[in-house]
Structures are given as structure tokens and as C-alpha cells.
């Protein structure tokens, strides 16, 4: 067994929950590998990691890993994560969401968690479709594309998740694709180490649903499309907005220092206790 596989096995509940539910060729496995490698590199204890997810293909991820894991309701993962983090600030809380979770049903929770700058890392698997329910239109399905609920054509504009996170006030926002696995490793490591609300958007393919309905080819072909569409943040900065149409800007989009919710609340606690003593 290669060293890298051994490392991943160290963190899996491999004797309990496999085989997994994902389709052969799915990008979630690459994302999970990046997550595990980043956790291992930083050296977190398994006990201090809490992995929280919502509903859908991405929602099934926590069940396979040997951390404190919580599979919540659709779109609400961040609300549970907020409670866990505030109750036990020493835990490292990581949220896994899909595009439906993050910006459709849970859009409100997402922007407010970013605005609060609560110390949680959110990893969003964006595959432009509702995969588990059979390929319906999601808020990140591009204009003009097909799904089982937009069989004629999608007439809505897609959300740009990372830009939404930047605007909502997240302290760290990075975007990668499952083709750029090494970049994902480093983005996740940076996000985990960031104090404050950090977001990593992972562009992935759903060849089973989105790819099939839009004739985009196999998993490998769709990953090649990710490679061809990707532009680094540095390159994109020198390009005109119209040149970026249809491109995926990858890298660190924002990394800034902001007051972190827990630190601010600790000050409130000190003030409240001092006031009580008077």
C-alpha cells in the first residue's frame, strides 16, 4: 500500500462503514483525501476535530472518517457548528456542504456565519447540481445548462460561492478544483490554520448527473475541463472581466485579519463579570 493511502486509512472508519455511497469517479474522494492530508500535516488529534455536514452526497462524508462527526439537516450544518464551536472553543470545527446546502437552503446561515467571523472552516463541494436526488437544477448550475428540472434550459444566473463569501465578510476564501489536488491540500491547510471564518470552495464534477445531462463526457474528461478552465488568482488579476467568462479562478481569493467572534465574546464575558462585581 502506498504511503499516501496508508495515511488516509489512518483516518477512515474503514472497518465499519465501507463501501461508500459515492459513484465511481466522483470528486468527493479527492476532496476527502485533501482534507485528511491537511489535518495530518497540521497534526490535529482526532478527538479535537468535529466534522459537521448537511444533506446530499457531501453530507455523507463525515460518516467515513474517525472524528467527532455530525450529519445534520439540509443547509443547517453551520448553525450546529456555531453551537459546538461556542460551547467548546478548543475544538476544531469543520463544516462540509454541497452547493445546495451552502447557497440554496442554507444561504442565510452561510452569509451570517461569514459576517460573524466565527472560527469555523467551511468546505463547499460545488458540483453545479443536486446529485443525490437525481440531477436537479442548483443555484450554481450555469445559465443555459440542463438538469432534470430545467430540461429545456436553465434560465437563472448562477451564484459565485466564493465571491459571495468574500462579500459576506469571510476572513479567508480559497477556491480549487478536484483536478488541482495539491492546491486543495494547501488551501485546506491555510483555511484550517486561519483564525476566523474560512471557506474553501471545491469545484467538482458530477459526471453521473450534470455531465450526463449536458453531454460533458466522463469523469476524466470533466476533470480535464476543470484544468482547461482554471486560471490562477494572479493571472486573473491581469485579465479583463469579459475574458474571465467561463473560467474558474483558483487560489486564495481573500485572506484578511478581522475580529473573531469568540475573542470578542470573551471580552463581553469579562465585562459582564466585572459589572456584576460592582
Amino acid at each position, binding site marked *: 500500500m502506498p504511503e499516501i493511502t496508508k495515511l488516509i486509512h489512518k483516518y477512515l*472508519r474503514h472497518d*465499519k*462503514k465501507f463501501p461508500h455511497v459515492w459513484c465511481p469517479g466522483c470528486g468527493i474522494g479527492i476532496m476527502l483525501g485533501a482534507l485528511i492530508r491537511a489535518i495530518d500535516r497540521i497534526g490535529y488529534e*482526532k*478527538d*479535537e476535530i*468535529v466534522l*459537521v455536514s448537511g444533506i446530499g452526497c457531501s453530507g455523507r462524508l*463525515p*460518516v467515513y472518517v*474517525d*472524528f*467527532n*462527526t*455530525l*450529519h*445534520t*439537516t439540509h443547509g*443547517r450544518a*453551520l*448553525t*450546529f*457548528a*456555531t*453551537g*459546538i*464551536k*461556542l*460551547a*467548546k472553543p*478548543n*475544538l476544531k470545527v469543520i463544516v462540509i456542504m454541497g452547493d445546495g446546502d451552502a447557497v440554496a437552503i442554507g444561504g*442565510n*446561515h452561510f452569509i*451570517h456565519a461569514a459576517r460573524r467571523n466565527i472560527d469555523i472552516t467551511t468546505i463547499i463541494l460545488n458540483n453545479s447540481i443536486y446529485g443525490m436526488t437525481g440531477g436537479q437544477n442548483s443555484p450554481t448550475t450555469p445559465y443555459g445548462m440542463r438538469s432534470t428540472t430545467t430540461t429545456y434550459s436553465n434560465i437563472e444566473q448562477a451564484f459565485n460561492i466564493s465571491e459571495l463569501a468574500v462579500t459576506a465578510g469571510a476572513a479567508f476564501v480559497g477556491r480549487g478544483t478536484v483536478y488541482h489536488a495539491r492546491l486543495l491540500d494547501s488551501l485546506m491547510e491555510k483555511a484550517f490554520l486561519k483564525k476566523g471564518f474560512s471557506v474553501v470552495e471545491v469545484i467538482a464534477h458530477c459526471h453521473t448527473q450534470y455531465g450526463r445531462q449536458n453531454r460533458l463526457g466522463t469523469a476524466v474528461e470533466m476533470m480535464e475541463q476543470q484544468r482547461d478552465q482554471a486560471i490562477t488568482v494572479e493571472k486573473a488579476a491581469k485579465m479583463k472581466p469579459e475574458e474571465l467568462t467561463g473560467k474558474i479562478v483558483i487560489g486564495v481569493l481573500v485572506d484578511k485579519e478581522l475580529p473573531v467572534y469568540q475573542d470578542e*465574546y470573551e471580552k*463581553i*464575558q469579562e*465585562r*459582564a*463579570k466585572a*459589572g*456584576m462585581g460592582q
Partner: protein
Amino acid sequence: MKKHNQREKRKSRQRELLLQGNEAVAEGALRAGCRFFAGYPITPATEISEVLSVRLPQVDGTFIQMEDEIASLGAIIGASLAGVKSMTATSGPGFSLMQENLGLAIIAEIPCVIVNVMRGGPSTGLPTFPAQGDVMQARWGTHGDHPIIVLSASTVRECYDMTIRAFNLSEKFRTPVILLIDEVVGHMREKMILDADEKIEIFNRIKPTMPPEWYIPYEDTPSGVPAMANFGEGYRYHVTGLTHDVRGFPTSRPDEIGPFISRLHRKISSHFAEIQIGEFFQTEDAEITIVAYGCVARSAKRAVIEAREKGLKVGLLKLSTLWPFMRSAVEKILQTSKVLLVPEMNMGQISREVKRVNRGTARVVTLNKVDGTIITPMEILDRIAEVS
């Protein structure tokens, strides 16, 4: 002499307070050990949030105002899973939003307390007027077949006591507990004595004592309640809203689903005696017994006293536990009563249950009021005159 008395008072740490029902809920929560509150402003429950936003940070607790009621319940479930006793408070519209995550707390067996200060509905309804329209929603609001514990309070002191009781029951049975009060009780001010030395039983969840590798998080036990490990204490396990096996992992095996759902019900149904409390007031010889709860129970008590003065044999069964329904208490009053009168500020929610328990031995009559005003003792007395 006066000085001496004051010193005595301070010594016993007794405080006489003029408190609102909502404020008493907040005090009760603190006494029960609540150290996390997440909420969203809503009339007529907002005072609970306001008081706890001041009080919780004083005791190293946390208050957070969330973006909506869905998030509020999610946050308190998360905090409870991390080991901190947690509560939220709302009213009808917010309670509707909470039904989704309420189901998760039930299936994942995470203790938490939800206070619903009832106002008139449906929809935005009557934000500043009382009602008792959420009794059935509290029982059946979240989807799927599930057990639930719902308590009520009719005085400021009961708001305090029932909040503590709600925490104790939720910790003991690993279940969300709902406290239903109404706008009148929530906003009414009464004198209440808070005694810091008063012996009040506080129950904390049973934690696992075995080594982590032996821990089975959803194991069946004689009581039906498994020991609960808090996140971050060395017991890594999976918590899900999916139907799960004893280890917490999703399952679709009928031989695992059936026993799991049965255990969820059994852990409540085998402890009715502990969960159900009420008050029998002059029911021993009563021919007409009023069954009431919340602010209506106060009017009913007054009506009993006045009816007795007129020589009528009237009694009161006050329900403090609304769900699971107090079947045996109703059966007890059916032994003497010819008429059961159920006054409610809804179109008849608890009266349906009373009718269900009555097997034709008595007449069950209702008094329903849904105009945003309380049911007065006089109205109950008039109804007694009609039916006697």
C-alpha cells in the same frame, strides 16, 4: 432589629422579586445549569433573550442572537452535543420554523429545551395577545412518528420550576423538552421568592464510563436511555438525522430500524409516572371537573372556589405535563365526575384527548375562546351553570 432582619435575609440568600414569567424562565434556566442560549427576537418571548444576553456572560455562559429560529435550534443542539446545557425561546411563527431541527434532536437524542410563549395564530396572528393554539403542534409538529415531552406553566413561580424540570427531563431522557406558556403568563408580573439555598434537584446527563472503544452510543439500556458522550471528550462517534444502528451509523435494515424507533418511544412511555405532573384541586367529590392548563388554570381555580361557595361540587385538574397526555389523571377524575369541562384558548385541542380517554362514562364539554382575550372565572362559572 430591622438591621438584624436584613442580615438574616442576606444570610439565607433569599431574594423577593417581582418577576415576569419570561424573566422567571430565564432565571430557572440559569439555575438548571443552562449555559448556552441561541434565539431570534419575537414577541411575546423576547424578554427571555434579553435577560439571558445580560446574565449568561456573567456566568461564563454564551448568548448568541442567530439569523432565524431554524439556526437558533441548530445552534443549541450543537452546543448540547458539545456538553453544554442549552435553550432557545420563541413564539408561534418561530416555533413553526423550529419543527425541522426538533426532529433531529429527537432522532439523535440530544437534550435541549425549547420555550414557546404562545400568541394568537395562525401565521403572524396576534403577536401581543395570548392563545393556546400550539398544543397539538408541540405534539405533532415535526414530521415522522416521535415521542415528545411538553410542559406548561400557569404562574411565574411555575415558569421557574417548569424550566428547571424541562432541563432535568431533557437530560434524563435525552430528548428535547418543550415548555409551552402563553402571553399572559409570560408577561404577567408576580412576587416570587428566589432562595439560592433552596434544595432543587438538578439532573445532569449520564455520561459513559467505559473506555471509548467499548462505547456503543445508541445502545439499548433497561431505561431505554443510552449514556451520552459529549463531543471532544475522547468518544468519537457519529451523530445523524438518518435512522441509525446502535453505533450511530445510518441503517436501512428493518431489524435495526424497528427496535430503534421502538426504543425512542419506550424511553418516554415507560416513565410516564416520572414525567407527568398535575394538580388535583377539590376533585375528591367533584361532579363537575375542569381540566385546564396555563393561564386558564388560574381562572378555573377561581371558578372552583366560587362554585364551591354556591354549593356546587366542582373541582380542577390542572395539567402541568401536556404531553405525553395524562391519561391516568383524567381516568381518576372520571371516577367521580359526571361532567368534564375543558376551557381552552383554542378551538379544542386538549379536549380531544380528554374525549378520547373518556369511555362514555361522563360528558365532556368545552369552552373555547379564540379572540385574543383570556377566559375569565365568570365565563367558566357561566359554562358550569349551563352544563350542571
